[in-house]
């Protein structure tokens, strides 16, 4: 088990390999479909200091606003990452992002982006909304809430021992590619 705390350096990321189990600590930034389209098309400057050497989490949480105005996370598991495939590599490069958390894995373009910039794809257990929300200790800030709505906004949160597995590393390794190839081979046999 590897403990990592954000911000993360390129050197730290380059050491991670497919299959490594990671407990992530510190600040992370939530973003999904609308955020990624926005980052690729408009490249907002204001996000640069927020994202540099940080980790993006593909997640649209269930949130609760308390009477004193502060927010907490009620359920916060990962959403399917492949929808961000057209945007991810460019977002990683533009903002020097060191990690992307999601589920289901991503494609070739993202893998190339991870290798070029020095970043990893970290897999969280899909559907584990309650379990993962417990590891979100504090909502620090939220950006673009009005414009995007709560599932799509940039939530900036602090996590503690957030459980993850490296499934795509910065050296071109991908667990998703291996499982896909093996299951396709088996399917051929079953379909014969």
């Amino acid at each position, binding site marked *: 088990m590897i403990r990592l705390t954000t911000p993360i350096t390129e050197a730290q990321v380059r050491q991670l390999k497919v299959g490594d189990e990671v407990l992530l600590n510190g600040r992370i930034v939530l973003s999904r479909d609308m955020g990624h389209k926005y980052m690729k098309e408009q490249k907002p400057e204001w996000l640069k200091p927020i994202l540099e050497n940080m980790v993006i989490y593909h997640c649209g949480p*269930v*949130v609760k606003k308390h009477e004193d105005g502060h927010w907490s996370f009620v359920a916060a598991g990962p959403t399917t990452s492949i929808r961000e495939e057209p945007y991810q590599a460019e977002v990683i490069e533009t903002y020097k992002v060191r990690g992307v958390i999601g*589920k289901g894995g991503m494609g070739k373009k993202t893998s190339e982006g991870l290798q070029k910039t020095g970043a990893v794809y970290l*897999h969280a257990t899909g559907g584990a909304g309650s379990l993962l929300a*417990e590891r979100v200790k504090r909502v620090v800030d939220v950006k673009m809430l009005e414009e995007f*709505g*709560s599932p799509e906004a940039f939530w900036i949160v602090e996590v503690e021992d957030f*459980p993850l*597995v490296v499934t795509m590393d910065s050296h071109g390794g991908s667990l998703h590619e291996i499982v896909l190839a093996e299951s396709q081979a088996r399917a051929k046999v079953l379909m014969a």
Partner: protein
Amino acid sequence: MSECVIPTLTSNEVVESKSVLPEGWKADLSNLKAVDLTLPTLELLRRSTSRLPQDVIDALVKGRDAEEAGSRAFNTLNDMVRNILLADGHVTPLCQDTGTLVFWVRHPFGLSQRTAKQQVRAAVAEATKRSWLRPNCVEALSGKNPGNNMDPFHEGHPIVHFEEWERPEIEIAIMQKGGGCENVGAQYRLPDAAIGAGRDLKGVRKCIIDAVVKAQGQGCSPGILGVAIGGDRVTSYEKSKEVILRKLGTPNPVPAMDAFEKEMTRDLNTLGVGPMGYGGNTTVLGVLVEEMYRHPASFFVSISYMCWSSRRRVMTIGTRGTVSFD
């Protein structure tokens, strides 16, 4: 996180004590015009969003215990069980994607569907306010979120199917269908040359295998597959969803289909996709199939993929007016 979690949910007494229905709540089914379904539907939502059906939990535990202890597949299934217990204990959503809400309302003659729909919508809005549901309904092109799970045109969301039946009870079934798993559903038109599927059960088998391999872990495996053979494009897809309401482990009433379901479950679990696509022996928890009639020219096979967090509940308001949940 590999310590083996024992899957014990909170007791029925605890669930009852947290109910939004006042003790002794009753509906007067002799006066259907006055029946208000809002509160019981809110309670239905509370239970479906936070408490996974026992048959699904049993299947997940069976899958976990068939994986090698300490493997990634084992740990992942164990985390799923852990999550189920947390959501149940806290009465919080099992998953942040509380899904597209699909209701099936069956009722005796005399109930106003228009009024019932308003009551179901009111319950959904209230459940959203209580953070039991994420605001999951957005305008298609702009992505604009009204924040209350309401499609203002009363069409898209929540989805409410009505059926009048001959029985005196009112039954409301709900399914919370996540977006990730909805996206990996598929419809095939046989014959399908690309996968070599003809117009027979062997062809159906190829469609199912193809869909599961394409889905990999993206629908949050281990999934539950609803399969409809026949119908038109719409009824076929609709049926493929409805069959997921059947409890896992309940035999298909058609013996040949029952055998097919078991064979498919066994074979799909040799694909090696595993929980969340990490690899492993648990790729699906079950396959549920129903055959329909079709136009002679059309042969559709529709597959709805349900994630492991298969949130469904059935509420019945019996002839005495009392509510029960299953």
